């Protein structure tokens, strides 16, 4: 039996599979259930300083096995989120607090709160493609990214993950700006949209949204590979992982762990246990005894 346990930025994981931010992670009880289904860790929905309703529905379009979403960073505000983390932490596995803001000061406030609530790491959403003033608008400005990461790192003890956007000309530049982070999370969704031709209208209330799921996997693999090759830093891969092959592809491209989001729509929460067990069989068949032995093996 291969050993599926691994670690990222010093956080021990029972297996390399974590829940991605924004999917089934705004309610503490749901996060508990996702962990009960085999996730080694969960990342919370991105939380900001203030309560936000986000966009009104439709906030999602089904595109085959992929999705286009414009949830609009709905969240209860950091002050209302302590309870959810407390509930989720009962599982005894790492809970990573995802946060969004538009400047270093706010990011720092949020990060400190997440640490105070007991989060094992903080993930910076520098990459949401569909909310003005947040996410991508922040995450495509290297100076701002550097300031945010530097400031936050100086104030908190738990590891910091920087989640980057594929909607940029040069991710390496942004990655370098965020190099004080303990790990990168790649990738967030790809800006996209869907028109209903009979309604003659964009479907999403926000018109634009983010593409996730199998459609973006080859893009995610490319970024993990490229950023790992260029920076050598620890990476958490995310984007379209639906099968054990996808998870291993990310790991061979250079990811130390992976996150799963959209596949919960096609496969349900049982995906975590299912992928983990099949990874195990694969590793045994292929003679890999530890996750670490696969990380980046495909890099040329």
């Amino acid at each position, binding site marked *: 039996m291969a050993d599926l346990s691994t670690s990222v930025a010093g956080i021990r994981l029972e297996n390399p599979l974590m829940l991605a931010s924004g999917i089934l992670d705004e*309610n503490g009880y*749901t996060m508990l259930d996702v962990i009960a289904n085999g996730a080694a860790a969960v990342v919370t929905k991105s939380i900001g300083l203030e309560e936000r309703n986000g966009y009104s*529905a*439709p906030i999602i379009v089904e595109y085959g096995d992929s999705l286009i979403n414009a949830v609009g960073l709905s969240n209860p*505000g950091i002050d209302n989120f302590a309870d959810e983390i407390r509930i989720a932490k009962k599982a005894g596995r790492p809970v990573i607090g995802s946060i969004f803001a538009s400047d270093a000061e706010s990011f720092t406030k949020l990060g400190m709160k997440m640490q105070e609530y007991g989060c094992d790491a903080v993930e910076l959403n520098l990459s949401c493609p569909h909310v003005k003033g947040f996410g991508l608008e922040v995450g495509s400005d290297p100076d701002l990214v550097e300031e945010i990461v530097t400031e936050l790192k100086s104030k908190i003890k738990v590891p910091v993950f920087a989640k980057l956007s594929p909607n940029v000309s040069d991710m390496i530049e942004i990655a370098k700006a965020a190099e004080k982070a303990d790990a990168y999370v790649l990738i967030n969704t790809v800006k996209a949209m869907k028109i209903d031709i009979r309604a003659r209208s964009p*479907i999403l209330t926000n018109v634009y949204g983010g593409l996730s799921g199998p459609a973006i996997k080859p893009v995610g693999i490319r970024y993990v590979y490229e950023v790992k090759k260029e920076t050598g830093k620890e990476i958490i891969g995310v984007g379209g992982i639906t099968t054990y092959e996808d998870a291993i592809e990310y790991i061979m491209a250079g990811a130390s762990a992976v996150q799963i989001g959209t596949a919960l729509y096609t496969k349900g929460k049982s995906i975590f246990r299912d992928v983990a067990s099949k990874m195990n069989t694969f590793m045994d068949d292929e003679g890999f005894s530890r996750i670490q032995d696969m990380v980046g093996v495909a890099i040329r």
Partner: protein
Amino acid sequence: MIKIVAEKVRDEAKNVRTIFFRWDQEVRAGQFIMVWLPGLGEIPMSLSYIGTPKAITVKAYGSVSQALVDMQPGQEFYIRGPYGNGFQIDPGRKLLIGGGSGMASLLPIADSETDAIISAKTKDELIFTDRFPENRIFIATDDGSAGFHGFPHELLDKLDVSVYRKIYVCGPEPMLYRVMQKLSDLNASAEFSLERTMKCGIGICDSCSVGGLQVCKQGPVFTIEQLRGNPEFGISRTTYSGKRVFLNMK
């Protein structure tokens, strides 16, 4: 999205309209659809008729449901689905307990062996009372304007529920919760269809969750066993922003 044309409409009560339409799709009783009105919004709706034609029965609350209640034959709307699990129908005598527009998802279950408790705040809001023979129907209103004066869980005290193979319940969560408590005491076999804030309808946004279960995907129908001991059912829920609010039922 699937384009649907309203074929026929029928007023069920004040601000409640059934919209009939053709949709060539297998649907189970208790499943729901997401209804989109371009420019207005998208909301979940149970199917009140699942044969040919199908129908939704809408009570006006806000802008989208109001626009549906105002819909005329020939007008268009867009849907996706069907979603959710639907009821597990067992043969034998059944009791339906519906509160307000909750009756909509129960209607497709009704057969010659089915009795129904239909409840509403007041007489004017009762729906589908004409769909059952008089001897099979029990009416309850909060204000006593028709039938039993009180809530469905109180009315249950007056019935012998042991004659029913299974009991199917849909309505506002406070009502579901009280009925669940009562039926638990009576050791009855029962299924409950829940309504919570829904944004995605496909099990990823977490806005509809109740104690780790997604109402849109693992529900909307849950067995009494699944709800008993659920840490959120009847206790708290998250709002559109994700903020936890308490129902203060206990």
